[in-house]
């Protein structure tokens, strides 16, 4: 495990680690110990961006804080806290995903519903969480041709991640199902259903 702190202009630093697992372990520790002057803590695939108000928190102190910080040991959350998302598994790419994995569609559904997922980070659109299955991961290639229109609530797979489209947008993920769950509501005090660190379980429901 190596942790590098990389320069990022005059009000941010980027913590780079070797794996998504390290991001998952470090992000809660960074978030829980943030000193006054931190503006944003943004986890991503192999890094965590920390932006600050340098007048309140000089970058030199950010560097010291992030270098010395031990990763969180409580990385695995109680799955009782999981957000449960009901899905109708009838997506247009379900059969293709099964074919690529050399299994039946039922097996894809059993895997997707049987795995506790974790929100690793957000991006792409407000409320879009990149969900990781950890040791249960299966790699799924993106679609060769992205779709110009993917409906809100579409449940997809790409690379090692699963995700749910919070709103209609273009998209290249393989779509295996759809949910009515509301992923994003800008007017709500807690606008995103899926925040980094949350555990997510998918539950199959009939169409």
């Amino acid at each position, binding site marked *: 495990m190596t942790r590098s702190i*990389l*320069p*990022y*202009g*005059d*009000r*941010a630093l*980027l913590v*780079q680690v070797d794996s998504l697992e390290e991001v998952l372990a470090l992000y809660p520790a960074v978030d829980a110990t943030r000193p006054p002057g931190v*503006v*944003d*803590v*943004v*986890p*991503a*695939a*192999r*890094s*965590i*961006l920390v*932006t600050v108000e*340098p007048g309140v928190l000089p*970058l*030199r102190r950010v560097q010291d804080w992030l270098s010395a910080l031990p990763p969180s040991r409580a990385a695995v959350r109680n799955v009782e806290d999981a957000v449960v998302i009901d899905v109708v598994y009838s997506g247009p790419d379900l059969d293709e995903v099964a074919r690529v994995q050399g299994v039946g569609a039922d097996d894809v559904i059993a895997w997707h519903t049987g795995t506790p997922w974790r929100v690793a*980070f*957000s*991006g*792409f*659109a*407000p*409320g*879009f969480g990149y969900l990781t299955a950890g040791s249960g991961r299966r790699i799924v290639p993106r679609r060769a041709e992205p779709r110009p229109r993917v409906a809100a609530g579409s449940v997809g797979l790409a690379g090692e991640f699963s995700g749910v489209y919070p*709103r209609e947008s273009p998209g290249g993920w393989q779509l295996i199902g759809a949910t009515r769950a509301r992923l994003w509501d*800008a*007017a709500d005090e807690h*606008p*995103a259903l899926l*925040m*980094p660190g949350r555990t997510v379980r998918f539950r199959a429901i009939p169409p």
Partner: protein
Amino acid sequence: MTAFDVLDPGPLLLIEDLGRPGSAHLGVPPSGAMDRASLRLANRLVGNAEGTAALEILAGGARLRARGPHWVAVTGAWGDVRTDGRPLPVDRAVLLPHGAILEFPVPDRGLRYYLAVRGGIGGADALGSRSTDVLSGIGPDPLLAGDVLVAGPVPALPVPPIDEAFTGPPLDGLVRLRLRPGPRTDWFAPGSMQALVDGEWRVSPASNRVGVRLEGEPLRRVRDDELPSEGMVAGALQVPPSGLPTILAADHPVTGGYPVIAVLVDADLDALGQLRPGQPVRFTRATGFA
């Protein structure tokens, strides 16, 4: 209280304040005024708190009609702004009578005017801000002809008799922007930072609130594998495979997969927000401690 009728929004008429920093981990861009100093100044001039919502008026063509007398201030771009056909003094508070028509022509300098009204532009907040984010769609829609804007409650502070801050007009001709190193200098051929600083760049017409694209001699990347998506900041010079940097701006996506070679100093983001298509840009290395 009704403030303005939008008669013509021009190319892009938006409500902006200082945006919604602090929600990037939810995938929410910072958004807010492209030229924050001009927004702050306009608000101070009419006695508002500096981060109050105001109008960001892109280039020329916008026309508004005042409803009821209102204290307003116009800052940012310099142009022949008129009220009922007469020149409107800029960078100071002006009391507009009911029915006065404000016209914003193509500016002589800069790109974005800011119009603050005493009490601020009213409306609903989303994640603590009234700013329109053109990338994510958060905030009010861009304004259209026929829209009616309301002013918020009159602030406790009086309209100050004079504002001591003088900012001067946006720069004409060559603009120099200061850089600090980004996290991915090692993705570029040796000497690329120097090439960035030595190069003559021009602002592409394909620029917007998401990013300001540059034209010039492409930078040479030495790696063409895919960078795992990582957090982005406003001012980051992101370099796609074309080698031509895009400087991310207020409505930038929170994560991106192109390497960032360098980052504008925060204080130069306001100048970025006033760059015009075709304007020449040069970079200098920022000195001193960050």
